[in-house]
C-alpha cells in the first residue's frame, strides 16, 4: 500500500470505511510526520493523544458494526485561532501565552462530532493579522516549497493560515481548518498549491474562534483538493444559536452534488482585477483558467466591478477598527499575560501588558483602528468605508445579473521570500487585493491550484460565488482542478 499520509480526506475516509487500514494507523502515521517536521514550524502544539483517542473511538465503532461518522479515520490540523478545550490556544500571540480554554469552538466541536481527530494546533499570523506568517510570536512558518533557483531562500507559506497551508502541502495532515478575514485561507492555499474555501459569511459559527474582525471573519477548510474541501466544510458549517450572525440554514450536501460540468453556467471575468505590475505568468494562468472554464462548457462574460480598487483601503479601515475593539479584552486581568511594573496602577498595567503582549503588526492595526474610530474621524473613515462597502456589494449584485461565478487570480504574485515584504506594510497588504472584495461582502470564494510559475512555485485561481452558492464555487473549482491536473508537490527537505 502507498503511504497513508499521501491520502487526502476522502481517501482516508473511504480507506478506513473499506477496512484498508485502521483509524489508529492513520493517526499514528500523521502524528509521526508532524513530530518530524519541526523545521517547518507549522505546529505550535502537537496533540497526538487527541488524534489517537478519536481514532480509537472510530475503530471501536467500526468493530461494533456502527455506521461510521462522516470524518471517522481523518486526523486534522487546527489553526490556533480556534479555542480547543484543554489545549493551549494563543492565536500565535504572546499575550495569550499559557491560555488554556475551558471550552471548545463550535467549528472544532462539529469536526470532533463528525469523528475527526486533532493532530495539533497550527501556527499562524498573530491574531490572523498578516499575509506571510511572519507576525507569529512563535516564529515564522517556513513554506515546504522552494524556488528552483537553488537559493533555498525560506519562502512564506502565505497568511494568516500559513501553518495550515504548509502542513497540508507537506502532507503533515490531510486537511486543516483555516480562517479568512481578507484572504487568509485563499492566499496561503494559492502559495502552497492546495485548495481552500471561505464559505458565505455566517455558514461557520464564529463562536469560540478568536475574533480579528467580526464582520469579516469566516472559518473554512484547507485541503489537497476540492472534494476534500467540500467534505470538511460540510462538517464545519451549520447553524449555531451561540452566534447571532450564524445563518439558520441546513448545510447543503456539497460533496454529493459536486459536478465539473459547467454547461449553462456563465463565468464572469472582472476587468478591474487586471492590476498594474501583475506578473505575466499570473495573467497567463488566468487566461488558461478562462479556457478551462470554456472547456468545461461555461459561457465566459466580461463584467465590471468598478469599486474594486477601493476594497483594500476600505478593508484597512473596517478590519482594524473592529480589531481595535475586539482585542481590548486582552488586558491582563482575566487570562493570558499580565505585565505589572513596580508601583503600576490599573491603567499602567493595561498599557504595559498590551505593549509587551502584542506584536508590531497587531499594535499597528490597533493604532489605526483606534485612530479611525476616534472623535471627529469616525464619519470620514469608518462611515465612508461602510458606504464604499455597500457600493462594492452593489457591484457584485450587478455582476450577478450577468454571471454565476467570477474567475480571478487568487494573489498578485507567487510566494515571496520571508523578509521580502515585511518592511513595507502596504506592499504586504496588497497581497490581498483579489481576495478582500469578496470578504467585505461575505461571499463564498475559493482558491484552487492552477500551475507553477517559472521558479516552480504554485499559483492559484480564485472562484467567487453568490451568497450561499458554495456549490457553484466548488463545482467551478472542480472543473479547474480536473483540467489543471496540478500534481506538483514540494520535495521533502524538512
Amino acid at each position, binding site marked *: 500500500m502507498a503511504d497513508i499520509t499521501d491520502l487526502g480526506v476522502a481517501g482516508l475516509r473511504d480507506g478506513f470505511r473499506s477496512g484498508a487500514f485502521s483509524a489508529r494507523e492513520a493517526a499514528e502515521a500523521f502524528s509521526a510526520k508532524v513530530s518530524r517536521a519541526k523545521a517547518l514550524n507549522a505546529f505550535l502544539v502537537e496533540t497526538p493523544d487527541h488524534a489517537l483517542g478519536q481514532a480509537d473511538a472510530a475503530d471501536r465503532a467500526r468493530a461494533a458494526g456502527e455506521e461510521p461518522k462522516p470524518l471517522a479515520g481523518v486526523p486534522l490540523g487546527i489553526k490556533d485561532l480556534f479555542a480547543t478545550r484543554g489545549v493551549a490556544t494563543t492565536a500565535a500571540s504572546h499575550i495569550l501565552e499559557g491560555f488554556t480554554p475551558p471550552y471548545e469552538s463550535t467549528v472544532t466541536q462539529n469536526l470532533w462530532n463528525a469523528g475527526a481527530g486533532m493532530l495539533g494546533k497550527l501556527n499562524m499570523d498573530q491574531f490572523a493579522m498578516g499575509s506571510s506568517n511572519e507576525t507569529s510570536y512563535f516564529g515564522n512558518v517556513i513554506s515546504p516549497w522552494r524556488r528552483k533557483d537553488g537559493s533555498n531562500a525560506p519562502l512564506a507559506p502565505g497568511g494568516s493560515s500559513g501553518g495550515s497551508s504548509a502542513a497540508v502541502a507537506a502532507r503533515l495532515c490531510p486537511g486543516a481548518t483555516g480562517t479568512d478575514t481578507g484572504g487568509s485561507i485563499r492566499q496561503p492555499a494559492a502559495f502552497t498549491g492546495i485548495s481552500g474555501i471561505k464559505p458565505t459569511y455566517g455558514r461557520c459559527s464564529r463562536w469560540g474562534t478568536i475574533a480579528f474582525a467580526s464582520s469579516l471573519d469566516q472559518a473554512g477548510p484547507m485541503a489537497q483538493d476540492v472534494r476534500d474541501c467540500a467534505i470538511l466544510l460540510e462538517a464545519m458549517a451549520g447553524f449555531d444559536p451561540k452566534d447571532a450572525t450564524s445563518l439558520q440554514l441546513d448545510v447543503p450536501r456539497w460533496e454529493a452534488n459536486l459536478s465539473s460540468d459547467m454547461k449553462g453556467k456563465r463565468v464572469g471575468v472582472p476587468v478591474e482585477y487586471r492590476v498594474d505590475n501583475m506578473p505575466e505568468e499570473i495573467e497567463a494562468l488566468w487566461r488558461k483558467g478562462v479556457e478551462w472554464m470554456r472547456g468545461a462548457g461555461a459561457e465566459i462574460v466580461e463584467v465590471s466591478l468598478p469599486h474594486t480598487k477601493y476594497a483594500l483601503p476600505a478593508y484597512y479601515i473596517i478590519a482594524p477598527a473592529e480589531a481595535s475593539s475586539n482585542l481590548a479584552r486582552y488586558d491582563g486581568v482575566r487570562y493570558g499575560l499580565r505585565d505589572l511594573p513596580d508601583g503600576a496602577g490599573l491603567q499602567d498595567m493595561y498599557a504595559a501588558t498590551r505593549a509587551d503582549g502584542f506584536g508590531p503588526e497587531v499594535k499597528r492595526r490597533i493604532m489605526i483602528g483606534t485612530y479611525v474610530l476616534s472623535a471627529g474621524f469616525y464619519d470620514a473613515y469608518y462611515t465612508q468605508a461602510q458606504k464604499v462597502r455597500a457600493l462594492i456589494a452593489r457591484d457584485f449584485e450587478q455582476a450577478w445579473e450577468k454571471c454565476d461565478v467570477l474567475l480571478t487570480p487568487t494573489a498578485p504574485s507567487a510566494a515571496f521570500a520571508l523578509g521580502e515584504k515585511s518592511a513595507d506594510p502596504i506592499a504586504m497588504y496588497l497581497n490581498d487585493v483579489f481576495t478582500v472584495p469578496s470578504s*467585505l461582502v461575505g461571499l463564498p470564494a475559493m482558491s484552487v491550484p492552477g500551475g507553477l510559475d517559472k521558479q516552480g512555485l504554485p499559483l492559484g485561481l480564485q472562484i467567487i460565488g453568490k451568497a450561499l452558492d458554495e456549490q457553484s464555487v466548488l463545482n467551478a473549482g472542480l472543473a479547474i482542478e480536473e483540467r489543471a491536473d496540478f500534481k506538483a508537490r514540494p520535495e521533502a527537505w524538512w
Partner: protein
Amino acid sequence: MSVDEATVKRIAKLARIAISDEEAHHYTPELNNILGWIEQLGEVDTSGVEPMTAVIPNKLRLREDEVTDGGIRDQVLANAPQAEHGFFTVPKVIE
C-alpha cells in the same frame, strides 16, 4: 489628515499600549503612510449611499429568557493571572 507624534501618543494611550518616545517617532511616518493610502476612499462619491449594516441579509435572532449558563466560577477564574477568594484581582483602583 496626517498625524504627528503627539497624536500617535494620544492614540497609543487611548488603545492602552505603552510606547516610548522613540517608538512614537518610528510609528508616526508609518501610520501616516497607511492613513495616506486609505484616504483615497475620500474620492468615492457616496452621496445617497447607506453604510452597510449586515454583510449577508440576515435578521438578529433573539434568545429566550432562560438561565442556561453560569455557576462555572472555577472555569471563569482558571486562567486568571491573579485571583483570590473567588475574585479576579487588579492593582488597587482609586476612584
